[in-house]
């Protein structure tokens, strides 16, 4: 769950990392008021949970309250990185002497936290890494021991960081690691982490993603993502699915897909493509979601482009008889007037196949590929 920049900066300030003075507004007039109060040049930044805002023209400099108002008016309501801008952050432009990059993230390779640091801040770190991997320093951390100031100072020892900034910088990196731990973050990335006169450190941006699995133990202590809400591309059916707690994505094709488990569902879509068809949706009803078969099927059929339905179950933990019963109840209730092909294997398959035969007078396919081909043929 990625936080908006200003939400991340609230966490940074609370932890003791300096950020520029500023405020978040949702109205151009308020942007002018804030700019007047801050004085001098300000930066107006669109608040969306997406990267590359600078390249998208979503970060504007303004030399007067009037310019700040105009910048805010242009950004508010625009779609940036797939999200509609609902708020802008107006901040005092900072006088800086250097731009650094710092991040702490969960590293699959070392199976622990990893500190990344580069003196080439302000850039796309993937590009820096691709061009000059040695310019990105890496420090794996033993999560039980934590990150020590000494380890960070050692990492910075022969870097280009000015001597006067090294100690405050090391302190800041240790603070960022502390924030990562306390908030159960998946990622704390500051790019750029700016150097100012006299060895000062200032976080000009904040990209913080929280672990959704850990939110339960942070009730009330972390910002709630409110800001800009869901992706601007979210469709009406996707919104309904989100409210139901179902994973549903509309894909624009004509074969409706109902499957269990993320891996199998992606595979079902791949197979529809492979046999020349085009899937209408991603919808996973594994786990506990099989109890939501009726609303799930309603979503799939709610798409007017759907011309056939493919039900592909392969039960490991998920019991195909339970899922199939839910789907058959839903079919009997909703009576879709389109061809349906079934492929059912794994836990509970004998009962599930018998149920389909008895209740729908339809014969499930023995091979998944045949069910997919039939659904593709029926939709074209």
């Amino acid at each position, binding site marked *: 769950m990625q936080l908006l920049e200003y939400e991340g900066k609230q966490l940074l300030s609370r932890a003791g990392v300096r950020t520029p003075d500023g405020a978040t507004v949702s109205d151009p007039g308020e942007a002018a008021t804030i700019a007047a109060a801050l004085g001098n040049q300000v930066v107006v930044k669109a608040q969306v949970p997406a*990267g590359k805002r600078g390249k998208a023209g979503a970060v504007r400099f303004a030399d007067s309250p009037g310019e700040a108002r105009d910048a805010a008016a242009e950004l508010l309501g625009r779609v940036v990185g*797939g999200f509609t801008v609902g708020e802008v952050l107006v901040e005092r432009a900072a006088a800086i002497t250097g731009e650094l990059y710092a991040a702490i993230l*969960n590293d*699959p*390779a070392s*199976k*622990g*936290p990893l500190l990344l640091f580069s003196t080439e801040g302000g850039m796309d770190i*993937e590009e820096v890494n691709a061009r000059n991997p040695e310019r990105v320093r890496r420090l794996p951390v*033993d*999560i*039980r021991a934590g990150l020590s100031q000494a380890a960070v100072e050692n990492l910075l020892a022969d870097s280009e960081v000015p001597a006067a900034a090294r100690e405050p910088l090391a302190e800041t990196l240790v603070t960022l690691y502390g924030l990562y*731990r306390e908030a*159960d973050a*998946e990622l704390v990335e500051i790019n750029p982490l700016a150097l100012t006169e006299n060895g000062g450190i200032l976080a000009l941006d904040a990209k913080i993603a929280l*672990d*959704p*699995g*850990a939110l*339960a*133990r942070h009730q009330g202590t972390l910002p709630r993502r409110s800001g800009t809400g869901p992706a601007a591309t979210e469709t009406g059916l996707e919104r309904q699915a989100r409210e139901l707690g179902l*994973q549903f*994505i509309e*894909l624009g094709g004509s074969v409706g897909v109902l*499957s*269990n*488990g*993320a*891996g*199998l*569902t*992606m*595979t079902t*879509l*791949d*197979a*529809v*493509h*492979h046999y020349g068809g085009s*899937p209408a949706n*991603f919808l*996973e009803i*594994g*786990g506990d979601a099989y109890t939501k078969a009726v609303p799930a099927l309603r979503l799939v059929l709610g798409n007017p482009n759907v011309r056939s339905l493919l039900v592909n179950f*392969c*039960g*490991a*933990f*998920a019991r195909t008889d339970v899922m199939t019963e839910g789907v058959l109840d839903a079919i009997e209730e909703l009576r879709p007037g389109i061809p349906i092909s079934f492929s059912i*294997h*794994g*836990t509970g*398959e004998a009962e599930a196949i018998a149920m389909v035969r008895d209740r729908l007078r339809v014969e499930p396919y023995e*091979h*998944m*590929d045949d069910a997919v081909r039939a659904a593709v043929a029926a939709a074209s």
Partner: protein
Amino acid sequence: MLTTRHDAVVVQGITGKQGSFWTERMREVGTNVVAGVSPGKGGRQAAGVPVYDSVTEAARQHPIEASVLFVPPMAAKSAALDAIAAGVRDIVFLTEHVPYQDVMHVLAEARDAGARVLGPNTAGLVLPGRASLGIMPAFAENIFRPGSIGVVSRSGSLGTLLALNLVTGGYGESVFLGIGGDPILGTTTLDAVRMLDADPRTEAVVLVGEIGGTMEEDAAGYIAGMSKPVVAFIAGRSAPPERRMGHAGAIVSAGKGDGASKVATLREAGVTVLDVPSQVTAALAERGVLPAEVCSGT
């Protein structure tokens, strides 16, 4: 990790609905479940075995080699640490939605203790004809039967489909390793492939991956040097970018971890990459691995 049927298994969270249901299934296929653990419920019996308050206590009464965790996410860290402290060598970490930092703590302890963790968010391990540690349909004879193909899968449902295709085509499995759908895993694709390469029962490897992360790419260097054939299916190649498809790890971002990059890297390493799972048997035959007589379990 390649447990034999004699290895003693403890089930943590055995008194829960899923814990007791799947313990019975595991025992049906010959798994040597010797005890269960459920804090505060020690002294009872569940699914035909004695229940203890902790693995440490269970280990005083039974020699225990492996543990299977049916424990809720917020209790999973202490349960896994209990197993490690009790000297358990193999931990099958089924729980989904465990906080990642808890997982990293467990994995650091496990590494120091020399214990191996499969998962979290895995469907488990199957040794057809010998044992099952987890929630795979090991009892289904059309899906699992003893053989020489080692299967590595992130997904339980998709792994089941590949196993089904293998058995339908006359093959059997030496082992099914569900490594899990999370981004941080105790046994990565690379770790799993190494294990199967070293396993004398395994003649060829079927790798079932998916978009997101770089685990398949990270294993490619090792695979390139293997003499056992490797066949792979990568799910989600047709998925639109930047959309999360269920598994926490299955998101393609910043041009990394997409299907095209995985397929290209694996092909370069000499892997036969399938377009659909049903091609698996033809691909194995092409690589000189033919269906064999059913092997006997140990």
